[in-house]
């Protein structure tokens, strides 16, 4: 019991938090960028899965980490481009298309897995390369902090860095400005000559890139193989993380950290004899509470407009209402 609490405040616990955060932060950023562009991409689950799969397969057969990385990214980005094509060109409902593509990825990965390895569960018997863990030169020396911050899988650091890059892109470059403009008022963007579909496509591709890194981390960092549906809903939790973070880079990171913290606690107390189901629902419950608290805060600013405002994610219902003709 008390060793439990000592362990909760242990270094490994802090270390675990960053580890749990990584596969959440990536898709959460994917959600954020696509939402900012006004086309929320909830195909994160599928994109992660397909990247996780192709990463391992290509890695195993080529033995090259780089090829694996490329393959994973290519697969996920392609998936999101398909989504983009149906949503932007064929005006298909993006939410539904994404649901379909999630179904698709779950099916196709298992199918190919079987074709390639003759196994339907996992590639565990395929030796595939994994992304290395790295120690950060100076930081690693610092007593506690060092042990928590240093020595993580390289993708964990990539995640943290890309939060910053993501911020730069969205708020310091023309493309970022255009993505935001397109998300807020496509007609306005159109009227100044921005190619709305192209811009949205960029955003979706970017979300695919993030998803890919998240998926690759699962199958080539967290563990060293692919197993069916191994994303286990992280792509959806990412929606919560991104929303909690106000679709902002830093906010998204903080909320992902928060969710990771809660999950880690749930994991550490799993061995107490509380009914396991109750422990498993903790992270989700707390997320809902946090959501209420933070949105509540966000709203006070504009008290007049109460409820006339609408939190993001409802595009697909409105899709049906376009009177436009091109």
């Amino acid at each position, binding site marked *: 019991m008390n060793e439990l609490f000592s362990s909760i405040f242990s270094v490994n616990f802090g270390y675990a938090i960053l580890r749990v955060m990584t596969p959440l932060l990536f898709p959460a950023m994917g959600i954020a960028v696509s939402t900012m562009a006004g086309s929320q991409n909830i195909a994160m689950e599928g994109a992660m899965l397909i990247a996780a799969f192709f990463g391992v397969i290509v890695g195993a057969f080529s033995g090259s980490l780089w090829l694996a990385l490329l393959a994973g990214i290519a697969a996920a980005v392609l998936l999101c481009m398909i989504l983009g094509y149906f949503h932007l060109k064929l005006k298909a409902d993006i939410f539904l298309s994404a649901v379909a593509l999630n179904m698709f990825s779950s099916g196709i990965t298992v199918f190919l897995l079987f074709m390639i390895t003759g196994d*339907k569960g996992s590639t565990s*018997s395929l*030796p595939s390369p994994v992304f290395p863990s790295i120690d950060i030169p100076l930081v690693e020396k610092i007593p506690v902090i060092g042990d928590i911050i240093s020595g993580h899988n390289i993708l964990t650091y990539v995640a943290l860095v890309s939060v910053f890059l993501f911020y730069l892109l969205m708020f310091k470059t023309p493309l970022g400005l255009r993505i935001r403009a397109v998300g807020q008022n496509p007609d306005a963007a159109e009227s100044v000559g921005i190619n709305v579909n192209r811009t949205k496509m960029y955003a979706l591709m970017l979300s695919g890139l993030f998803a890919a890194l998240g998926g690759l981390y699962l199958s080539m960092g967290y*563990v060293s193989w692919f197993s069916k549906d191994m994303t286990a809903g992280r792509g959806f939790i990412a929606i919560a993380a991104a929303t909690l973070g106000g679709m902002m880079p830093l906010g998204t990171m903080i909320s992902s950290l928060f969710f990771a913290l809660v999950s880690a606690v749930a994991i550490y107390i799993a061995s107490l004899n509380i009914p396991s189901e109750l422990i498993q629902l903790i992270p989700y419950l707390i997320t809902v509470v946090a959501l209420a608290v933070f949105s509540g805060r966000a709203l006070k600013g504009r008290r007049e407009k109460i409820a006339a405002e609408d939190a993001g994610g409802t595009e697909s219902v409105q899709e049906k209402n376009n009177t436009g003709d091109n």
Partner: protein
Amino acid sequence: SKKEDTAAADGSEKAVEAEPLKVVLYLNGTLGDKSFFDSANEGVLRAGSELGARVKVIEGGYDASRWEPDITQLCEGDWDIIIAGTWQTQEILEKLAPLNPDKRFFTYDTSVSYDKGGLDNVYSILYLQNEASFLVGALGALITTSDMPLANADKSMGFLGGMDIDVINDFKVGYLEGAAYIDPAIDVKVAYAGAWNDPAKGKELTLAFFDQGADVSFNVAGETGLGGLDAAKEAGKYTFGVDSDQYALFAESDPEKAEKIVTSMLKNVGNSLYRGIKMHQEGTLVYGQPEALGIAEGGVGIAKNENYKKVVPAEFQEKIEEIEGKILAGEIKVSSAF
């Protein structure tokens, strides 16, 4: 040739020239669980190749509402033996078997309740996984109390279950009693992942065991459990595989991980189905009653592979042999979760 497969594969009343034994295995789930579904599949396919039976394996998936119609459909087909396992299909068989007296049914990992009557055409196979888990628990206890290279001072071990269900708890019970048999003071941490397909979570949970003082852990959680093996590799601790020999699974692909897998608790579903089909052909199989396969019948056991021999100290191996003997002799009675 294609045409024949067709005839065999589809359930329709097509006349087929030769009359080989026709066996269909219906999985109320999907393959790839590295557990009894994969094992069952392997056993039935082996019966196909070695016993000349015409066999087919169907993945019914996890949507409970379709199992009954599916199996009903199979009954309409021209199968001689219909195999459907786990408790989840028990009631379906209890309902369908009496309606199809001309068919033969196998069920495994559970038993139909024969007192309901009309089930003389059903053969039920039970596995005493608790017996083998007892051995694993005992071995774990020996290790955690030892000064083996990766063992620590704490008398602590871990058990990771996929879900809080009887089959899994049957493993747990045996594991706990085995541990207590060696040293009652040992603390066994138990956690359930609540998911069969989340290796990342399995890894976290197992790492948490190790972080809390355990130095050996046993996971019975399908895909999720595989994450536990990675945890052992990363934390440099011992672990046990389950259902099939998981050391062999990783021996080439990831030796470093493989050698952490001291042994695996084997549940030979495949063998038992193969055995059943064989006995059916020989006409020695007795229907209308359950059969419990324990260590004695080779239904369950632990993998005494090269790694086991290499890693486990000789005196421990002897101790395990001794315990195994006592179980066989009935001197040790292992309780069950059923």
